[in-house]
Each structure stands twice: as structure tokens, then as C-alpha cells.
């Protein structure tokens, strides 16, 4: 992380916190919704985008964090309950990740699908702990002796998002993070390079689970209700959409993707309201969401971040390194190899 990117991120964080604090409750809600979703997307991107472990259990994992934090919060732990939720999720994430030491790719992904369904089932069944289908009513976070309001939550959530981003950015610039990337590309190569693949995976699951739990805890406190229907497979799909739209393997992209996926439906809906008789606007909004995911995957598989990079690269092509030349050089070398083999 360069000093410049740190300062830009800090300025953006302060900017959004101010927007959240000053523009009324609705905007505050949007700001903290995006911030919370971003924390979840960061966590998922660590696992899928950086470490290459495809998971569909993100929704349930966020749920674990929400219940963990909610139960701790109701027991009077205050802000520390966010930490409780995060730790709960990290442990459950580790449990979900253990099969990854034996299974790979598709098979592991399907096993996480199972984890998603089983966890969601447990939320409904463990009545004494989770209050079952009724959902756990969570006491509000107290701030200056009063329940925190939307504006304060906006500041808190943006602050936590900034911290999460900072921590994760630093971690992926250590050997721990580098190992994730190598494991993603090829476990065989990683092992040959002396990387402990199992340890890298376990670290990725713990790390990702921790932040998923933080995201869940914030959901519990801001919505004041942790109910199983909020943590179904749809949430996993939304979160995956965020990191794909934003850019796999890009932390900044996760945040952009989260903003996009969270705000786009609202934007479509507002535009739709200008039309007469748009009762089924939700249907169109879902349709747009589906089409958007498909288009992104087809046209820009590396997400908005890659798109932006391409635009900037074109603009500053002369000043920057001449990437196209290198690429053609490389491909030339490969064709030479093919020629030899033929």
C-alpha cells in the first residue's frame, strides 16, 4: 500500500462518513448498508479472490456473526460483542474450511453449499440460543448513554470498514497474503515453493470468517433483529456478485462492488417510479441484477476495477510502463515454443 492510496482511502472514508452523518437518516442507512456489505465482500474476496476457495456459505457465516454479536450484546457486552461475533464466525469458518484440505474446486464449493443450508437450518432450530424463526431481537448499541442512531451507525460502520480495509491490505502484503495468491493459482506450485498449503487455507478461512462475523454483528445491531431469513443463500449470492462485479482479487474492488450491488436496485427502483404504473418494478430490478452479473462475467470478468485500470492505462499509456509491448513479446515467445514442439 502506498502512502497515496492510504490517504485517498482515508479521505473517501471521511467523506462518506460525513455524507452519512449529515444527509439524513435515509442516506445514513444507505451509507452504512454499503459499508457493512463491503466488510462482508472484503472477507469473501480474501477467500475466493485471493485464496481461490469458492464458498457459498458466506450468508450463513454472516448470520453466525450476527447471532454471536446479538447474544453477546443482549448479555451486556456492548461494543465488544462485535468481536465476539467475529470470533464465532472465524471458528465456524474454520470448520467449514476443513474439507478444503481434502477437496478442491467444485467439490469444495458444493460442500459449502451444504454448510449454508445446514447452518441456516440450525438458526431456525436452536430456539433457546437463536430464538428460532422469530428472530433474535437485539438491544441497540449504547452510545453516550443513548441508543445509537442511524447517523452514528453510519460513522461507526464507515470507520470499521476503513480499519478492515487497512488491516487486510497490510496482511495481503505479507507472506501470509502472498501465499494465498500462490495457493489460488496452483496448489502444486505452492507446495513446490515450500508454501504450507494447508496452513495458508486455514489462515484464509479464519481471516475471512472473522470479517464476515464483523459484518454480521453490524447487521444485527443496525437492523435490531437477527432472523434466519436474512441469512439465506440469497445473501451468499449477493456477496459473490459484489466481488465479481467489483473485481476478484481486489480489495478496493470489493467495496465498489458492494456499493454497486447495494445501490443499483434502489437506483433502478427510483427511476422506475418515474414511469406510470410500475407495480412490478421489483421484477425488473431483479432482472437487471441478473443481466448485470452475466454481462460483467462475459465482458469484464475481472470487474469494475479492471475496467477502471484499463481506462486509466489508456489515458496514461505514454507515461506508464508499456504493457502491450510486453504482452506481445511474451506471446511471441510462446508461439516460438509451439513452433518447436510442432
Amino acid at each position, binding site marked *: 500500500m502506498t502512502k497515496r492510496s492510504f490517504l485517498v482511502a482515508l479521505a473517501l472514508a471521511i467523506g462518506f462518513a460525513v455524507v452519512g452523518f449529515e444527509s439524513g437518516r435515509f442516506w445514513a442507512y444507505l451509507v452504512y448498508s454499503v459499508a457493512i456489505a463491503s466488510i462482508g465482500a472484503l472477507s469473501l474476496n480474501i477467500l475466493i479472490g485471493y485464496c481461490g476457495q469458492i464458498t457459498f456459505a458466506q450468508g450463513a457465516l454472516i448470520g453466525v456473526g450476527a447471532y454471536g454479536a446479538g447474544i453477546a450484546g443482549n448479555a451486556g457486552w456492548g461494543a465488544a460483542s462485535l468481536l465476539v461475533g467475529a470470533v464465532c464466525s472465524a471458528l465456524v469458518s474454520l470448520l467449514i474450511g476443513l474439507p478444503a484440505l481434502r477437496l478442491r474446486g467444485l467439490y469444495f464449493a458444493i460442500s459449502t453449499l451444504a454448510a449454508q443450508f445446514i447452518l441456516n437450518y440450525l438458526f431456525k432450530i436452536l430456539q433457546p440460543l437463536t430464538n428460532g424463526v422469530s428472530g433474535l431481537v437485539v438491544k441497540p448499541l449504547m452510545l453516550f448513554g443513548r441508543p445509537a442512531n442511524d447517523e452514528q451507525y453510519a460513522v461507526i460502520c464507515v470507520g470499521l470498514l476503513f480499519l478492515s480495509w487497512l488491516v487486510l491490505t*497490510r*496482511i495481503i*502484503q*505479507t*507472506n*501470509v497474503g*502472498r*501465499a494465498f*495468491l*500462490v495457493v489460488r*493459482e*496452483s496448489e*502444486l*506450485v505452492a*507446495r*513446490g*515453493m*515450500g*508454501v*504450507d498449503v494447508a496452513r495458508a487455507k486455514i489462515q484464509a478461512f479464519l481471516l475471512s470468517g472473522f470479517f464476515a462475523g464483523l459484518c454480521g454483528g453490524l447487521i444485527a445491531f443496525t437492523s435490531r433483529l437477527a432472523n434466519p431469513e436474512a441469512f439465506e443463500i440469497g445473501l451468499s449470492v449477493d456477496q459473490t456478485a459484489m466481488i465479481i462485479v467489483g473485481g476478484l*482479487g481486489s480489495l478496493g474492488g470489493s467495496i465498489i462492488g458492494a456499493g454497486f450491488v447495494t445501490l443499483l436496485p434502489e437506483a433502478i427502483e427510483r427511476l422506475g417510479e418515474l414511469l406510470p404504473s410500475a407495480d412490478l418494478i421489483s421484477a425488473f430490478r431483479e432482472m437487471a441484477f441478473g443481466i448485470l452479473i452475466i454481462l460483467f462475467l462475459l465482458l469484464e470478468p475481472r470487474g469494475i476495477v479492471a475496467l477502471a485500470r484499463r481506462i486509466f492505462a489508456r489515458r496514461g499509456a505514454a507515461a506508464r*510502463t508499456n*504493457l502491450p509491448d*510486453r*504482452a506481445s*513479446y*511474451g506471446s*511471441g*515467445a*510462446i508461439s*516460438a*515454443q509451439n513452433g518447436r514442439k510442432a
Partner: protein
Amino acid sequence: MTLEVRDLSIRFGGVAAVTNMSLDVNAREIVGLIGPNGAGKTTFINCIAGVAQPDTGAASWNGRAILGLSPADLLRLGVARTFQSVVSLHDLTVLDLVKLGAAAHARRGRGFLSQFFGSDKAVDEEICESLLAPLNLVDVANSPIQTLSYGQRKSVDLARALACEPQLLYLDEPVAGLTFQEGLNMGAVIRSVRDRFGCSVVMVEHKMDVVMSTCDRIVVMAHGARIFEGTPAETQKDAEVRRVYLGDA
């Protein structure tokens, strides 16, 4: 400082990939392992690099048995390798990969906390000077590996292997896929690496010109077994080698 491999054999299903293969490598020696496609060269390297588990045989490095050790264990003993095909490690920069390689070595690896809070500047400079400069990689030190040419990627892989200060280096087709000129350069680099780091080298390679000009000694394999061993000059003269290998090429 010697590698001794005795009677190593491995079968995959019904196919004998390597049969009773033996190999000795002395200190600071560059040994070339050549042979036609399917001769079992890479399988042999995999066996002594901790990737595949041979059925029978023994191997020792400085008197220590190395069969059954993982690549990570081998790295700690000073045995490193490069890979035949360079995967495109998308988001890693050259420095990233080299640092990851260095992590396998106790002295160069840094603690997590010092990496997390500290600056990498000093380390980067040291790597540039000691590893990247000899391989002509300083200019691209901060470029993502995917943006490099094939030849540069091979160099990066070599730098990564060198980062953990190996005393024995396996090179799996270091020249394959490079242009003629790049290949010759790589040969020179390998010799200078040997001189600089004082390590022994085992290189598997197809390209005869590079092998002949780089290696001190050549071992020829065919059908999983050794059929010849000698200096480059002797190898070129040997009729059997010419028949099974050079004739094919």
C-alpha cells in the same frame, strides 16, 4: 556437499516411469539431465524434489536421506527447484514472489508482525541488489508477473528459488519456450549463479546447444533409465546417445 541417488524406481499404474536410476552430483557442479520426451527426467526430479514418492531407491543430500521429505523440508535443507511451466501468478509482483521464496529460508524470512507493521523498503532494496540485478529483473521488480515475457517469468522463478539460498538447485527445463538468444543468456546466467552462490545444479533440458555450453557433466536418460554419462564433448560423440536422442531431435 553431494547429492547421491541410488537405484530409484517409480511406476505409475503399469508404466515404469523411472527404473533403477542413480545420480551423483558434486559440489558446485552443473549436471545436465537430457533425454527424449517421456524419458522420465521430470518424474525423476519430482521424486527427489519431494513431489512424487518413488517406489524403491534411496537419495541423500550431504548424507541426509531426502526421500519422503516435503518441498518445504527440502528448502530448509538448502534444496530448491524451479518449475517447467511457469504459471501466471496473476496479482503477484516479482518482488512478492521472491519474498515468498525467501520466506522458506530461516534467515531471510521475517516475522508476520514485522511485515505487517514494518516497511519493506530495505528488504526490497536488498533483493534487488543481490538477486534481481544478476538476472536483469530490477526494472520490472514491481510489475505483476503476468505482464512479463515468458523468458522473464523463467528468470523470476529462478530468482524465487535462489532467494532461499539453496546449495542444490533443480532446474526443470529453464530454457524451454525461450527464444534462441534468451536461451543462451539463460545458460550464462545459470553459470554465473553457480559461481556467485556456490551451489550445485541439476538441470533438465531439451535444448542441446544450451546444455552443451552450460553443463559440466551430462547424464542421458531413455525409457526411465540412464544410458550414458560424460562431459558434453563425450556426449556429443557417443553413438548410442546420437541414436536414441540426437537422431530423434
